[in-house]
């Protein structure tokens, strides 16, 4: 019994860590633009496809190797970042001075655009993600089995999150990002090129989503152009749960969501898996709209 519970926790942790990578992008973009980037789930999808094509191009599926995994990750992250740059530059930047709802509608439009362009270009049938890295065997602790792939996925996620944490809190760029998220005008009075920082923030957040696309491809090796819809919505919930705009919050919210889903599936009602995130969203909006780590920032007039 306890063992089963532990097994679910391990699964939940690895799922949650992937959610966290996506949730971070939501929270970062919200931080600098106060925009829920609804196209984020589709950037994650594109990341998975860039990973798919680059792994096939380099023939990494012939033999499993960590190098193959890292190169695939690198390609997917660069691809998503490049896409993010284009989205920000051509869809969002022209609306910088427009009412916020215009931006939101544009985000939904970009999302649909990517989904259907994806279907047009990649075809709507699912593709099998190349298994660039297939570790053999499980780690067993008595009855508890830990899949090495899960550990690798979890490890890479933690590594990327650590890197982000370092960038945001220890570097000049990170300081500029936090300044821009506090107030654009004030940041530009410091001499910070706010447009550039917004663009970079977008790219970093999307690179993380691209990495998540590859990691998901390893665990659930079936990718299709609409694969971003559900994780996109769920990770948005995770970011809200943690307190949108808060980086630690996004990670904690995503881990909670991942584990909650896994426990729900294991003990109660597997069919409600996808409903859980939305139940959480409703509860959080009712009882703690600022999220677990969010602070209520009253705006001074």
């Amino acid at each position, binding site marked *: 019994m306890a063992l089963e519970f532990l097994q679910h926790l391990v699964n939940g942790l690895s799922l949650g860590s992937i959610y966290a990578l996506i949730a971070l992008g939501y929270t970062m973009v919200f931080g600098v633009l106060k925009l829920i980037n609804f196209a984020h789930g589709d950037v994650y999808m594109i990341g998975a496809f860039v990973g798919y094509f680059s792994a096939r191009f380099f023939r990494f599926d012939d033999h499993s190797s960590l190098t193959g995994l890292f190169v695939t990750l690198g390609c997917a992250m660069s691809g998503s970042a490049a896409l993010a740059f284009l989205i920000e530059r051509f869809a969002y930047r022209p609306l910088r001075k427009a009412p916020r709802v215009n931006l939101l509608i544009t985000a939904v439009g970009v999302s649909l655009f990517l989904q259907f362009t994806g279907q047009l270009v990649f075809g709507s049938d699912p593709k099998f993600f190349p298994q660039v890295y297939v570790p053999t065997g499980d780690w067993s602790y008595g009855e508890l089995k830990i899949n090495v792939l899960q550990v690798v996925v979890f490890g890479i996620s933690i590594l990327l999150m650590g890197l982000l944490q370092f960038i945001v809190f220890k570097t000049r760029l990170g*300081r*500029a990002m*936090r300044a821009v998220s*506090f107030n654009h*005008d004030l940041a530009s*009075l410091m*001499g*910070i090129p706010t447009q550039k920082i917004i663009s970079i923030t977008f790219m970093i957040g999307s690179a993380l989503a691209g990495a998540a696309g590859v990691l998901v491809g390893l665990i659930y090796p079936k990718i299709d152009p609409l694969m971003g819809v559900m994780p996109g919505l769920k990770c948005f919930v995770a970011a809200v749960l943690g307190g949108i705009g808060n980086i630690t919050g996004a990670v904690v919210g995503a881990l909670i969501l991942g584990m909650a889903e896994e426990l729900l599936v294991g003990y109660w009602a597997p069919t409600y898996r996808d409903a859980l995130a939305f139940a959480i969203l409703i509860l959080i909006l009712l009882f703690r709209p600022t999220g677990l780590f969010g602070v209520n920032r009253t705006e001074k007039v």
Partner: protein
Amino acid sequence: MSPYRSETKNDSFLLSVSDLSVNYGVIRAITEVSFKIKKGEILTLIGANGAGKTTVLRAISGLIPPSGGQISFEGFELTKLAPHEIVQKRVCHAPEGRGIFLNLSVEENLDLGAWSSPDQHSFAQDLEHVFGLFPRLKERRRQNSGTLSGGEQQMLAIARALMGRPRLLLLDEPSLGLAPQIIEKIFEIIQKINQEGTTVLLVEQNALQALQIARHGIVLETGRVILRGTAQELLDSEDVRKAYLGE
């Protein structure tokens, strides 16, 4: 060539604003405002709430595009530059309402003030300099700036602007919402900064105090310049005394 030519060419004016107008949508905020600041002086812009004082500063810093007029700083036309490029010309702005990054520590705020500084060596030196002016900030350097008192937050806003080694320092209502003793202290420090060679454009509602440290003053009313002169002339002017000094 006339011997006077080099005299006038020697451009003792650091900043000259001419016929500056700014609209917010259909509302005209300021109309054809003109003034010049001499190198090394304190010029104060006084006027009631809503007279357009802050708008003038925001236009100089490039935060709002003017609908007309020129702003020339050391030969550069600022209206053509983005805000972060204007800071690179070392025009540093401490915005009103203690505009500091409440989500960052005191030291991180100061560090951002030095963002455009090309020379990272001078950072430690500049930090010592502002800590000399504001010892309280040194005690609290690691604290989150949201935990500072109102006076300390204002000091931080000024200190941060100084970290950019300003040739022109724009101060927007540094006395706003502060206790009289603290205002006194802040004005002393502004005077000290000026004596060290920094030119200051001081926007204030607190006319009496501002005119006491300034050399020249300008009075704005509903977006227009209605009076200008030396600080002493304005202090002596009946209109100013009535309208702004409560006599």
